């Protein structure tokens, strides 16, 4: 799993480039929390600690969750999320290999449902002008909830491109008008589209080194693209382009890093295709018609539930039994 962590680095680097180093603090916080809670749980469950800590699975959960949480959120938010992911979603289900749900996505779901307000503290990209907090000021807010005098939170944060899109569409604006807003770039959100591209780059590395199979990411992105494409062709004023969907929110990190968690995804090739297509449809539905700005987490969790059934019904024919099935 070390190589999966490495594959996240291009995305993280671009994140730092566009949004400043605050994300590194969340990543560190998440990592420490994950390793600490994992160690405590292993101790309580009387399991060997060293081999399980060194498999990097807890770190991966921590990083995926930290990248899904706004960097300006209070420090305890990421700690609570990661602790819940490790303690409940992973260790209470039996630890590595036994968790039916993606722990990071369970952590995210808990946070977005329990602390919706804190989950909107996204930093605006540095290139967009306006007020910018220095790194020290950001940390002062994250840890002590103190902003420099004379500033309100709204001045330094913004809602995500997907969120803005949803709100503006509700207000009756057309996609074309909304896309004129400064937060948008060429494909999707300014800055965030590049971060998504960074994750896609890491994902391609995983794909070409055969650490992940093509089924999950390609089918997921393909389904999302098709769904968005059909709606966009049907009514371009209300439905954004497929590329916008690809490069906003967690689509890329989801396709290559979240859905591809082998433990909570199907094992058969056919099963992976069904799983990824289902996740693609659900993601689009939640993004466009649901109450949450992004749908990856819930789509993943919902599809995780179906994995045993998908696996059971997609068993491939074995050697010497292929003709029998015809």
């Amino acid at each position, binding site marked *: 799993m070390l190589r999966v962590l490495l594959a996240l680095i291009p995305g993280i680097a671009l994140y730092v480039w566009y949004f400043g180093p605050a994300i590194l603090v969340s990543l560190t916080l998440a990592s420490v929390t994950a390793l600490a809670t994992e160690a405590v749980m292993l101790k309580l469950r009387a399991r*060997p600690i060293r*081999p*399980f800590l060194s*498999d990097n*699975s807890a770190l991966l959960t921590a990083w995926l969750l930290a990248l899904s949480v706004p960097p300006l959120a209070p420090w305890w938010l990421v700690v609570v999320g990661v602790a819940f992911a490790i303690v409940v979603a992973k260790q209470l289900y039996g*630890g*590595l*290999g*036994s968790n039916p749900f993606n722990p990071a996505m369970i952590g995210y779901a808990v946070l977005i449902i329990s602390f919706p307000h804190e989950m909107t503290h996204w930093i605006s990209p540095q290139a967009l002008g306006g007020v910018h907090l220095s790194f020290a000021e950001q940390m002062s807010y994250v840890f002590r909830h103190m902003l420099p005098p004379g500033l309100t939170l709204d001045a330094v944060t913004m809602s995500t491109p997907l969120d803005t899109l949803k709100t503006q569409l509700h207000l009756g604006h057309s996609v074309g008008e909304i896309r004129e807003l400064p937060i948008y770039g060429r494909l999707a959100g300014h800055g965030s589209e590049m971060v998504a591209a960074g994750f896609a780059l890491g994902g391609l590395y995983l794909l070409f080194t055969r650490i992940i199979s093509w089924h999950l990411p390609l089918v997921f992105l393909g389904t999302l693209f098709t769904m968005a494409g059909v709606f966009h062709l049907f009514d371009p004023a209300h439905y954004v382009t497929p590329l916008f969907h690809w490069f906003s929110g967690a689509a890329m990190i989801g396709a290559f890093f979240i859905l591809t968690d*082998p*433990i909570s*995804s199907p*094992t*058969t090739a056919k099963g992976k295709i069904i799983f990824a297509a289902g996740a693609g449809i659900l993601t689009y539905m939640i993004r466009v018609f649901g109450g949450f700005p992004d749908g990856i987490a819930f789509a993943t969790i919902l599809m995780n539930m179906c994995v045993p059934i998908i*696996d059971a019904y997609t*068993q*491939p*024919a*074995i*050697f*010497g*039994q*292929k*003709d*029998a099935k015809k």
Partner: protein
Amino acid sequence: MRRLFTFHGGIHPPANKAQSTTLPIAHTPLPEMLIISMHQHAGEIAKPAVQAGERVLKGQLIGTPGGSFSAAIHAPTSGTISAIDMQVVAHPSSLPELCITLQVDGREEWGERHAVDYRNLGNAELQTHLRAQGVVGLGGAAFPSDMKLRHTLPVQTLILNGAECEPWITCDDMLMRERAAEIVRGAEILRHALDAREVLFGIEDNKPEAIAAIQHAVDGSRLPFEVIAVPTIYPGGSAKHLIKMLTGLEVPSGKLPTDVGVQCFNVGTAHGIKRACDDGEPLLTRVITVTGNVVQARNYEALIGTRFSELLALGQTLPDTNRYIMGGPMMGLELPAAEVPLVKASNCIIAASDALFPPPPPALPCIRCTRCADVCPAELQPQDLYWFSQSNNFGKAQEFHLFDCIECGACAYVCPSNIPLVHYYRYAKSEIRARDQEKRAADLARERHEFRQLRIEREKQEKAERLAQKERENAARAAPAPVAASDEDTRQMRINAALERAKAQAAAAQPKNIDHLTPEQQAEIAAVEARRAHLHKIAADSGADDEPPKQS
């Protein structure tokens, strides 16, 4: 150029074959003692045909096939049988098997040899001959070769398996290099027996010398056989997978290759068949690779029954050797001791050390990464089989085709969590077999019990009927008696009836072994009978005067 096919999965472990191919095959010196297992083949145990103390000649039959699915066993050299008892053999359970111990006299005195001309023999006669000569498959499974000549459909393709995909093993490679003509001759015998339309030699492309040697022998024989280099991939030497690579046919699960018109023999077996027919020599020796942690790895032609320790001594094991593997590192089994004897299936003995074969790191949980499914040549879902096996969910394991697993070990080889997957499958298979057996035994016991109950019930009924019958007869006999008979008469009548019954019973109970006796004995018996009758009379008479016993 023939079009080759591929099968799903497979791996490329380091071959480690160069070590044992530097020197030609050597003959082992005659050992002082041979331990010949009666169970060297798939199927039933052979029955010893000699007695302890008997002198046997080389090639003499010492074990007859124990059933239709079994093989004959012969004395590998001349000597004296010193014991027929249970000994530890090459089996992971360390359970002893019936073995014949032969004290070698060193004279190598041959018994009768039955050479045959295969051209005069039909399939059935060849089967009989091979069965008598104890020829079994030398590729590893030791399946009786005569059984493999049976077929219902015409055999289109005969395949000679020289793939030898397991790492370290080179016995087939060396045999092909050195005795190619004999192998080709064996192939011709098999082609004749099966009436196959084409004959293909499948040899992995990492054995160019063997390919060249066989091709040379085929050219020399002017037979239309085809020598095909197949890609080196483990387990490409599995019969069903070699058939797939060469013909594109998949032998259906649970069926035999002959069901798709193909049959497959190991090249070593072909060599053995040649000797059994042309030279009339039963299967007495085999070529075995001695390799691993040894000074000089090499192939030896050794007598069946030679103890592995003697072979290892020839190779000179290095001091840090701590265990021995029979077969290859992928599918071989760890020997319970180096003293166990070579059997017909032993193709390789590896001296292993921790440096050469490091013990695997501790197993971690399965993360369902499906690397195992990617390499499984049987196209199973090893991660599911593992899950079901370790949770004793055997029904589900069978549903997921556990018994189609060929235990090649490719899954465990690639497992990133180092799970010894094949151990789990073997465990589940043996548990399922044991439970099946238990169930069958229980079913049999229940049937027997039910039958016994039925029999007891039936006997009871028959007895009751007999009694009722007698009552009726008595009643019928008593009926004509005068109604006005006195009490005295009736009593007398009952007594007479009782006497009659007693006599009848005595007659019935009379043993039959008094028929052919001397007159004196018969006279004595008659006297005894008379006395007994007298006593009965007295008893009956006194009983007539008796009053019913008082209740005290």
